[in-house]
């Protein structure tokens, strides 16, 4: 048994903030159906971010603008517990797939929209990507030590996308808890903007003035002499001397008179030597690991054994490594259900579940309303 194996999610999302949440729900056992345009999700061409948000889903390729495609989508909604997407404001209404339309065929549906800016306000009609919200929340200002005269710095992890998606996972599960108790479904939303705000939520204002927060030094080493990176004779070491005792131990084992002395002291010995010395002195520390653009981290036997990294077999791309299931449930463990699907890989299977016979399926495919992989797959979609 899996925690969510009684939950079906219909995923109409694109890019990252839409599809990543349903992928995490799939890892927890949900039956996730990606409803993909017949021409293929535009994000497929972008490569890494696409592959990182799609595993474990079944895929039906459907033209939502065709009346028969729309009818099939609603037939799927009728079987779904959750409808999930990141369309801009008004798009779902134009496609006749907004909450009201879905609720008409599935009274207790949980309907989640991951916006860029949220549904109200002067910019709500605009979409947008992660960098905007690293800007609006202050993350880039802090990351680059802009207060000290540097340029702002973009975090390349794109975590406002992922954060929006994870807010939606928590939101969907909250709505599910309410439905479990009352039988009632509901509509919910999250946004990239809110994800950025959550990440910078330690910024609060007291009687009109911002409170002091820890700031980076202009060289981006850390927040204080005790909580920062030091360059060593052969590399780097991160120190976390939090509290008076570890701080005193740090000064003692480095024989440093002051903060500048600490920098000089660390340059005299290797990272490994410092690690032993600091461990012995009771000063928390780690040597920064170079993940080799992720290839090292994803094939590290420790990460693989623990499921932090996972290995999948993809029909056209061969072995795929990416992060694994990242939360462990002792009685209903998570699982990676499969690789990212091809465009329409499960169209026939899903249409059959909806009660359509082979002849009807072929006819829909002829008419361009649905598709599934054929001999011309690579010609149409490349290797993705």
């Amino acid at each position, binding site marked *: 048994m899996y925690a969510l194996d009684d939950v079906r999610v219909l995923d109409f999302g694109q890019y*990252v903030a839409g599809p990543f949440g349903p992928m995490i729900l799939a890892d927890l056992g949900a039956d996730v159906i990606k409803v993909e345009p017949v021409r293929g999700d535009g994000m497929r061409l972008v490569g890494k971010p696409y592959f990182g948000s799609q595993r474990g889903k079944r895929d039906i390729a459907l033209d939502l603008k065709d009346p028969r495609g729309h009818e099939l989508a609603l037939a799927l909604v009728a079987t779904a517990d959750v409808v999930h997407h990141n369309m801009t404001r008004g798009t779902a209404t134009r496609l006749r797939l907004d909450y009201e339309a879905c609720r008409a065929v599935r009274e207790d549906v949980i309907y989640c929209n991951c916006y860029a800016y949220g549904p109200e306000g002067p910019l709500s009609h605009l979409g947008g990507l992660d960098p905007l919200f690293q800007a609006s929340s202050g993350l880039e200002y802090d990351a680059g030590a802009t207060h000290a005269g540097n340029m702002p710095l973009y975090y390349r992890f794109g975590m406002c996308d992922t954060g929006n998606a*994870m807010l939606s996972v928590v939101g969907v599960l909250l709505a599910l808890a309410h439905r479990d108790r009352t039988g009632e479904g509901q509509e*919910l939303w999250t946004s990239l903007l809110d994800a950025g705000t959550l990440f910078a939520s330690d910024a609060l204002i007291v009687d009109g003035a911002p409170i002091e927060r820890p700031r980076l030094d202009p060289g981006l080493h850390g927040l204080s002499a005790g909580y920062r990176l030091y360059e060593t004779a052969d590399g780097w070491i991160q120190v976390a001397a939090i509290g008076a005792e570890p701080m005193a131990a740090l000064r003692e084992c480095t024989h440093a008179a002051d903060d500048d002395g600490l920098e000089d002291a660390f340059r005299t010995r290797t990272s490994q030597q410092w690690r032993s010395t600091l461990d012995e002195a009771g000063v928390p520390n780690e040597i920064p690991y170079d993940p080799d653009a992720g290839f090292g981290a994803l094939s590290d036997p420790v990460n693989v054994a623990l499921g932090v990294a996972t290995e999948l077999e993809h029909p056209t791309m061969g072995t795929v490594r990416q992060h694994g299931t990242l939360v462990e449930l002792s009685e209903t463990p998570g699982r990676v259900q499969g690789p990212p699907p091809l465009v329409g890989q499960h169209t026939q299977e899903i249409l059959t579940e909806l009660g359509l016979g082979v002849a009807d399926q072929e006819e829909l495919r002829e008419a361009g309303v649905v598709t599934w992989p054929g001999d011309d797959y690579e010609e149409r979609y490349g290797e993705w």
Partner: protein
Amino acid sequence: MTQALEGIRILDLTWGVAGPLGVLLLAEHGADVIKVEPPGGDPFRGYPGYKVWTRSRRSVVCDLKHDAGNDAFGRLAQTADVVVESFRPGVMERLGVGAEALADANPRLVYCAIEGYPRDHPLAGRPGYDALVQAASGQQWEQPGWRPGPIFLHMPMPSMGALFLAASGILAALHARERTGRGQRVDTSLLQGAFLYTTQIWQDLERADESFHAVMAKTDPPGIHQPMIYECADHQYLHLSVMSGLEPTRSLEEITGAPASPLQIDMIDWSDERRAELAALQRDAYKAHDRDEIVGALQAANYAVEAIVPAHEQFSPPHPQLAANDMIASVHDPDLGTTTQMGVPIHLLRTPGRISGPQPRIGEHNDPIWGGELGYAADEIAIITAAS
């Protein structure tokens, strides 16, 4: 009004970033959260963000290290649906209040542990401060900055990932409990939180060509987004992004005075010099405008662009979208006075979330919980809450 987690009680023994914030997402959707603190209080209380991260819950004190406090905690755990803790591995077991012991007395209990590293990781048991996990996970080496080498991430990214993993794991376990009648153990860690944010940059595909791995590879300057940060006439910065989903109503050149970049595909045979020349023209163009003026003009013409501000300026002057979507809250704090802070970031329309109160004072709810609910007398409460 009904809330999603009404009737769910959570005992919060966490400290740091991930635990308090993960619990916050549940607290503000109706869970009854009791923060269980050691005598003297959670050592992280001095951190300013804690006023936000530990709001919407009650606080009791008990010393788990002596019998009276330990027994009282055990009784409280029998009334709970969820226990969340972030001690180092083995600490709760040694105190006799580990997952198994608590589940023996309360089989419906969901027990969530947030560690620095997964339990069987070689670094398990080592200190799990956020920056240490930034280092060990590879995140610091992955981030370019103003110098070579690993970069300290100001945002505590591993913790900011683990908070979601904990909250979603707890909710998944509560859903499973509806069918099984039993709780279970939920484990996550800051290391796993760090990996959550690798999904766009760490992918290894056996048969992918170079172009696949070139997208989102670490480069200097970093990636496609960093070069779209522009300095303006007033020495403020903005971040332009590639698409808003809408057709622009005016050209970029018309608004900024500099030619727009052609599509990547049309620039393929451009020399480095030619690219640099265009980039310099664009940088100079933004320097002719004040930030807010040009951001407003670009947004009005459907461009995706934001001013880069210090974190508190998201609230004051308020970002119009945060203001319009109920994401800026005024919270009266008994010590600080009137504070402006983040609202509730998950918007459930039938069962709305809400901030149920400011950060509680240490042990503020000792009397109603230890006394009123569990029936301890005043002298017994004094012993439960005293340091051993």
